[in-house]
């Protein structure tokens, strides 16, 4: 069996697939690749199923060596187009810090074959359910290739833009114009953003009700307004329940952008039109 030997990692490397679904009622976060389209492209390029596990690499710094030749593809941050490449036995793959964006995805033909936990190979960074975080010295097993690599892929390149939002279930807990204010404010990505949430800096949204909202189920993309009044967008490792009002929900098709926005970059929200979400 082919293995990948991890020689170096940057700030955070995790194994991710499409997430751990159906367990939110047990308090388990979904996890999964934050930039789903990039992870999907990497898998298609090397001939994997869409459920294959990949490596999610925050800000580069990953260096790994294959002990047998294998097809690999690197997508995501700063790489709208990518191609499958043959990594020869003993050769080293380096994922450098990207010039733009944050998260790169490394797919290998056959997928990262660490044991699944509760049906998924995703690492949830909230409660650390799933495979261990990838550290230097790790040896990652690779599965049997399921299909042939594609030298080229012509993805529908997602277009960046304002995050499209729909009004959320607790908009009435905030001032009557909070949704409009959300969509009229320029926010800046805060440095403490992570896989749990995209945290923002910017004008705070006043609350109408000061009482405590009993905990309720949260969705991916929920725009929650904590007591500070500055919204947080819930990403893949968000807690399954929460007690702050949800003002809006980001359209699923736009969540990949939250994976790639750097601290200090601007973010805007815009009302989603009903019907198809394709930009």
């Amino acid at each position, binding site marked *: 069996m082919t293995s990948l030997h991890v020689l170096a990692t940057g700030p955070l490397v995790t194994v991710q697939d499409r997430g751990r679904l159906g367990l939110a*009622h*047990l*308090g388990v976060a979904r996890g999964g690749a934050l930039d789903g389209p990039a992870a999907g492209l990497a898998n298609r390029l090397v001939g994997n199923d869409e459920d294959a596990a990949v490596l999610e690499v925050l800000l580069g710094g990953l260096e790994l060596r294959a002990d047998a030749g294998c097809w690999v593809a690197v997508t995501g941050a700063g790489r709208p187009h990518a191609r499958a490449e043959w990594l020869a036995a003993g050769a080293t793959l380096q994922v450098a810090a990207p010039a733009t964006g944050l998260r790169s995805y490394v797919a290998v033909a056959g997928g990262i074959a660490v044991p699944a936990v509760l049906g998924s190979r995703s690492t949830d960074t909230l*409660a650390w359910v799933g495979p261990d975080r990838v550290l230097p010295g790790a040896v990652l097993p690779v599965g049997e290739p399921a299909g042939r690599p594609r030298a080229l892929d012509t993805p529908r390149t997602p277009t960046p833009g304002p995050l499209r939002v729909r009004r959320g279930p*607790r908009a009435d807990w905030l001032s009557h114009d909070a949704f409009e204010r959300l969509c009229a404010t320029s926010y800046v990505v805060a440095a403490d953003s992570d896989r749990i949430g995209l945290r923002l800096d910017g004008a705070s949204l006043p609350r109408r009700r000061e009482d405590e909202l009993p905990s309720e189920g949260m969705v991916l993309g929920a725009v929650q307004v904590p007591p500070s009044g500055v919204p947080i967008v819930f990403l893949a490792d968000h807690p399954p*329940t929460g007690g702050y009002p949800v003002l809006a929900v980001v359209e*699923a098709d736009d969540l990949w952008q939250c994976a790639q926005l750097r601290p200090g970059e601007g973010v805007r929200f815009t009302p989603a039109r009903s019907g198809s979400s394709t930009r």
Partner: protein
Amino acid sequence: MQLHAVGRSALLAEVADAVEALDLATWARSVGVDAVEVVPAARTVLFDGVGDPAALTARLDGWTPSGARPTGDLVEIPVVYDGPDLAFVAEVWGTDVAGVVARHGEVEYVAAFCGFAPGFSYLSGLPLELAVPRLGSPRPRVAPGSVGLAGAWCGVYPTASPGGWRLLGRTDANLWDPSRDRPALLPPGTRVVFVPR
């Protein structure tokens, strides 16, 4: 019941309380509604990953609370009552430590919903007049197996974490094990009794 849209593929059903939320979630699972996640909470049930929200809305309109007692599995949790907040709880309840152990142990609880951490179940059943306030500032580390109270909820910490619940004691029951068929010992709907030892 009030229904709120949450984005384009989720619905939040608002009901009277945690008992009704569990009732709705149990019904939804038993009839197999079209949702990837059915998440009961204190006063709501979230249906997420819904293919056809309009169809689910119509189906939920046909639901009425059963009013029946939960009939989930009964799990006995052995407890050593030696927690740091026993004296505080005794004072709030107007009794002594033996009285706290007796009152806590005579209730049959029901796991209403999970949250906070994988396998952390909010157990209902304690009368509201026995509600206790949380700690003013949480402890930095609460050991796994710690049995505590917050408001009228009872809970058992599945893993080590910070926590502000008032601790009564500890159990060696394993609340959370991802390698088990049933990873959570107390999924929603489970009936729970505490047995002193």
